[in-house]
């Protein structure tokens, strides 16, 4: 409960920093909005008054916060004249972000844990060594380069001749069509390079972490006890040792979140994904202050919330921490 309460001032302070950063850029953004024939005088005036654009920055921040919290009003997109919230999250962007980022994390985890177990079960085996080398290699390849290489390989492999597209989330023939098995399959085809580009480096890191934790756990007396009881090795590893090895992994998942955010941002640009991250990048390019601010707040809340979830998860599965706290 204390931790949840501590997250609120943290988010406030972080969004305030973001607010100041966004206002570093003096903009002709306002002039652009005034020049937009779609925006009426009265909208402009209401907006100016509501966000206190002629008042000091601190008050502007207060008003922005008030509008966000009370009305869910994140301001106006100066580019599209839509509310900033709509410009950033709507038309399915939020859903796609959740799907893309969530599936990336899930797949990375589903590959990493069994891989880590395998590496711990046969230390110095071929999988273990390959994993160590791969971990070094993948950590050194930036997400965008991995993405570009994958795209290039796919194009070079002439997958287009098989009727499969590259980039985006769907082939053209599926755009705007109702859901079908073919469409889901097509989505998966477009998602796997994203998983590899944005998730491979993190996943291999998690696998190595699992391997280390599991090896430590397997050396503990209770494992010897479990083995001497005659339990199957599989049972010992998956039910006894792995549960204790999971804790540091959860902390590490929390620490990986910033890299996952930047990774999915870059992947969204490289693979042309219709996600929040891409809308954010476009807003940065267009110097659209309120959309940028909404995006930064979104990432901040995600990071703080993610770390909080990791903490709470640790509390939930490890009674030792609960007693210590």
């Amino acid at each position, binding site marked *: 409960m204390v931790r949840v309460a501590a997250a609120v*001032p*943290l*988010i406030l*302070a*972080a969004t305030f*920093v*973001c607010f100041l*950063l*966004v206002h*570093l*850029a*003096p*903009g002709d953004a306002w002039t652009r909005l005034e020049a937009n024939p779609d925006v009426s005088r009265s909208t402009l005036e209401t907006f100016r008054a509501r966000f206190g654009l002629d008042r000091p920055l601190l008050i502007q921040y207060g008003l922005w916060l008030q509008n966000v919290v009370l009305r869910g009003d994140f301001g106006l997109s100066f580019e599209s004249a839509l509310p900033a919230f709509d410009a950033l999250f709507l038309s399915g962007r939020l859903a796609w972000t959740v799907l893309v980022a969530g599936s990336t994390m899930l797949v990375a985890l589903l590959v990493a844990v069994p891989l880590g177990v395998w590496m711990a079960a046969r*230390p*110095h085996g071929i999988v273990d*060594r390959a994993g*160590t080398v791969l971990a*070094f*290699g993948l*950590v*050194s*390849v*930036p*997400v*965008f*380069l991995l993405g*570009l*290489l994958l*795209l*290039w390989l796919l*194009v*070079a492999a002439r997958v287009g001749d098989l009727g499969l597209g*590259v*980039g985006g989330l769907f082939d053209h023939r599926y755009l705007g069509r109702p859901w079908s098995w073919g469409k889901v399959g097509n989505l998966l085809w477009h998602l796997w390079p994203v998983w590899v580009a944005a998730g491979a480096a993190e996943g291999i890191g998690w696998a190595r972490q699992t391997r280390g934790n599991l090896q430590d756990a397997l050396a503990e007396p209770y494992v010897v006890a479990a083995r001497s009881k005659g339990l199957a090795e599989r049972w010992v590893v998956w039910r006894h040792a792995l549960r204790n090895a999971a804790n540091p992994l959860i902390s590490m998942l929390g620490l990986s979140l*910033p890299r996952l*955010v*930047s990774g999915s*941002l*870059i992947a969204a*640009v*490289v693979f042309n994904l219709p996600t929040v991250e891409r809308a*954010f*990048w476009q807003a*940065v*390019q267009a*110097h659209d202050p309120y959309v*940028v601010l909404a*995006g*930064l707040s979104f*990432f*901040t809340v*995600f*990071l*703080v919330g993610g*770390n909080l979830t990791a903490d709470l998860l640790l509390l939930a599965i490890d009674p030792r921490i609960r007693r210590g706290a």
Partner: protein
Amino acid sequence: MTRLGRRTVSGAWRGAAAVLAVLAVMCILAEFLAPYPYDEQRNKDAFAPPTRIRFHDGEGWSIRPFVHPFRMETDVHTYARRIVEDESRRVYLRFFAHGAPYRLFGVFPADVHLFDLADPNREARIYVFGADALGRDLLSRVLVGGRVSLVVGPYVLLLLIPFAALLGGVSGYCGGWADFLLQRLGEVAVALPGLPVVLVVGAALAVRHVSPAVSLLTILGALAAIGWGGMARVVRGQVLSIRERDFVLAARAVGAGHMRILCRHILPHVASYLAVSATLLIPGTMLTEASLSFLGFGVREPMTSWGALLAGARSLATVERSPWLLIPGGFLVASVLAFAGLGEAFREAEASHASGRGVHLTH
């Protein structure tokens, strides 16, 4: 670390250091090694592929390497660029040729280049790594861009280490409200989404028409300002335990001031941790700079870096037609890998050193 790991890593650090040394020398000597200035545009050579250096053609063998002069044509239907080589002519390579003037190390005026084409009317060109969208020599750009890419990591750490050491040290040493305040500040820094924030800073500087060099330094400063939180937290933990040790008490007893105790007696004990974690942070910093430049908000024209060069390959169509634009990526990965290997070797050396002394500073 396992025995196997130790053997491979410890052996690898020489290789890593060698790779970095070679890359650094190449980048320092960029103007000499590359035949043309990195910012010289020849629009008619746009997207020229890497020039083939030959020893043999229809007329037979030659000991001197030569190239066929080429021109680029644009397909009227697809707008794809196509190379047309004039196979009837040979233009030989000339080593230590006089060419475009430059200043070696930024000081000494010179005009000798490692190689160029011996073309009397200076029309034919040789692009070892190909040319970019504006017909600029990619070899030259890779070498000049490497100066930024290689320096970014160490530079950010030079900014970050004193920051983290002092703030973490004060936080652990003083305790009380200073500790509380600094810890909260560190938490805010950790809570900020790194890449998006720096992206916004870069965009703001671009609108303000700040010069590219100042803009880059500011962006790197922002990276350091965001990155100090995690390191400061560890320093704080270590200082907390060190400040209770006898030698600190002794120093206090002889009347040393707080700042002196912190800087002269406590922080040196944290130095090895700082050095190691700093080296381990270099790869991440380099990748962030590369990503930022790739997205268009890091290094700006006319400056360049490996990440900025890769931005030229951002569209799928370009990558498909001109895969040589990915060459800077090879340099980037090699140098990041080398820094990572170096960091890992440092960490191991420190770990074995610490266990040898029987001192465990980590918690």
